[in-house]
């Protein structure tokens, strides 16, 4: 009986043949925490009697969620992280470096066949690089920092086969929103998602990351893809390591195989307050918006900023809209400056904030007012997500967000 990608990776890291349903203890290749979760992990680490981390090269901490610190409570937690990182000799990415889920791939330590755990639910992003990566809590993180291991229940896999070619101004974000709307917010709970088909293969590595990132929004433990030339070339920018791609066996067993034809897909929007509350842009077009956000670990990459700039170039955003842009990493920020993208965005009216999570999680950088509508390229629109429970959040692609910022209302990017 063949194995899925995740069964293979869990087998190679646990030294036993892992099959869906088994519980295994596996070795991890990289352990990551961010500033919302690391403070508790440090407390758990001390509580467990931890002294040193299992391998300082394989542990990283990122200050991205509230960076720079908006208040003294957060400052104290950041200080705790810095001191811990310095003392244990582990890599600390301080304010301005970027979002953890962009920095880990850029570190060169994530690639095909690797097993990564991160104390952040969107750690599933690195499935785009053919790694098994998943979100865990702070106590799990502490256990992994001490032991280099973690226990896993081997999940079943749902395979999503996407046929056809994405139409003009329809992107990876639209595709993943569509899939989430189709299977719902708990449609893949306790399971892994495997994305394949021509439409997925045609995506850039960045687009694939957008899809893997949102696997958790259907409840999945991971969102995996096969590696190809594009993956290996992308990785070669960051590391000399030669990876061995992990492909599923042809007789691997899946919980379900879902097939889609994406050739007629329209730009998608997730409406408040659920990510699976998805519709085509046409049915919400005209909804007034007061704030637009381009960034986050879902869509803050160079490709995303470029798409937004191509729509905003030479134009001004609606005077009643604030447009906030947060590049996903310092590297992307610099590259976007070199290519004139930042200039275009700022000239059109955007406020560019520190690379990091930006306003995504409601700690700072653009908390909406009561009753306001926000359109964002982020991955969650839960009530209160951006720090005000009486605001409404719509999720869409960078193109749709840019088009909406121009119009002052939700707008179809194919019509600008």
């Amino acid at each position, binding site marked *: 009986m063949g194995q899925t990608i995740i069964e293979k990776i869990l087998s190679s890291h646990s030294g036993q043949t892992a099959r869906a349903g088994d*519980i295994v203890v596996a070795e991890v290749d990289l352990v990551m925490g961010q500033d919302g979760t690391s403070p508790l992990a440090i407390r758990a680490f001390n509580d467990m009697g931890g002294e040193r981390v299992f391998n300082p090269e394989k542990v990283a901490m990122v200050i991205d969620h509230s960076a720079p610190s908006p208040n003294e409570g957060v400052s104290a937690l950041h200080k705790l992280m810095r001191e811990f990182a310095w003392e244990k000799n582990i890599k600390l990415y301080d304010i301005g470096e970027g979002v953890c889920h962009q920095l880990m791939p850029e570190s060169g330590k994530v690639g095909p066949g690797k097993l990564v755990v991160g104390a952040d*639910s969107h750690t599933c992003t690195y499935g785009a690089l053919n790694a098994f990566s998943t979100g865990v809590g702070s106590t799990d993180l502490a256990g992994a920092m001490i032991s280099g291991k973690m226990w896993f229940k081997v999940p079943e896999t749902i395979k999503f086969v996407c046929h056809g070619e994405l139409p003009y101004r329809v992107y990876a974000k639209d595709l993943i929103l569509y899939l989430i709307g189709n299977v719902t917010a708990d449609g893949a709970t306790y399971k892994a998602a495997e994305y394949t088909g021509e439409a997925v293969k045609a995506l850039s590595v960045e687009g694939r990351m957008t899809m893997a990132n949102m696997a958790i929004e259907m409840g999945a433990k991971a969102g995996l893809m096969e590696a190809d030339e594009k993956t290996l070339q992308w990785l070669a920018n960051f590391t000399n390591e030669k990876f061995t791609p992990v492909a599923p066996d042809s007789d691997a067993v899946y919980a379900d195989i879902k097939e889609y034809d994406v050739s007629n897909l329209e730009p998608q929007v997730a409406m408040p307050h659920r990510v699976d509350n998805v519709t085509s842009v046409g049915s919400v077009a005209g909804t007034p918006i007061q704030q637009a956000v381009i960034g986050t670990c879902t869509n803050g990459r160079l490709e995303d900023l470029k798409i937004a700039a191509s729509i905003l170039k030479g134009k001004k955003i609606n005077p009643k809209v604030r447009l906030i842009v947060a590049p996903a990493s310092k590297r992307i920020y610099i590259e976007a400056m070199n290519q004139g993208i930042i200039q275009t965005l700022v000239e059109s009216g955007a406020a560019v904030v520190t690379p990091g999570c930006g306003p995504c999680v409601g700690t700072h950088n653009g908390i909406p007012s009561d009753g306001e509508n926000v359109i964002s390229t982020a991955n969650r629109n839960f009530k209160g997500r951006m720090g005000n429970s009486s605001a409404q959040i719509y999720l869409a692609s960078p193109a749709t967000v840019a088009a909406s910022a121009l119009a002052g209302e939700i707008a179809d990017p194919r019509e600008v």
Partner: protein
Amino acid sequence: MMNLSGKAHKFTQDDINTDYIISGKYKFKTLDMKELAKHVMEDLDPDFYSKITSGDFIVAGRNFGCGSSREQAPLAIKNAGISAVLAKSFARIFYRNAINTGLPVVECDTDQINPGDRLEIDLRAGIVKNITRGIEIKAKPLPPVMIKILNDGGLAAHFRKYGDFNIG
């Protein structure tokens, strides 16, 4: 820890996410879980904290705890005096975090529980007794790994005891 009894606080909606359990406004600011506990479920029921008697249960629908990986969610619930959460299903990370922090989670048909019902739970056997209604509800038994971690008092206590994973 394997036998619990208390009163049911029922939240009927599905997909109660971690932002509802403890709002982002609070959870980034402090490691004081007693403080966070006062705001537990506040967006769904502003007075919830004051209604809890130590040992009570939260009872919910499908996909409880979806969203972020923050352990502040189970910790706030636990520190508010809740002794277990019962739901039709749980989001994966919340489920792990609850076990790791020593908060029992029980997957069962919660339609058979009304607000205010008195419940007795045998975690090991996977049985929820609804005393008020005089019925027994079968729960999905916890995997042995989880029973072991819960019994040790959570993953931190497990590590203190063994220095590593001991769940072979």
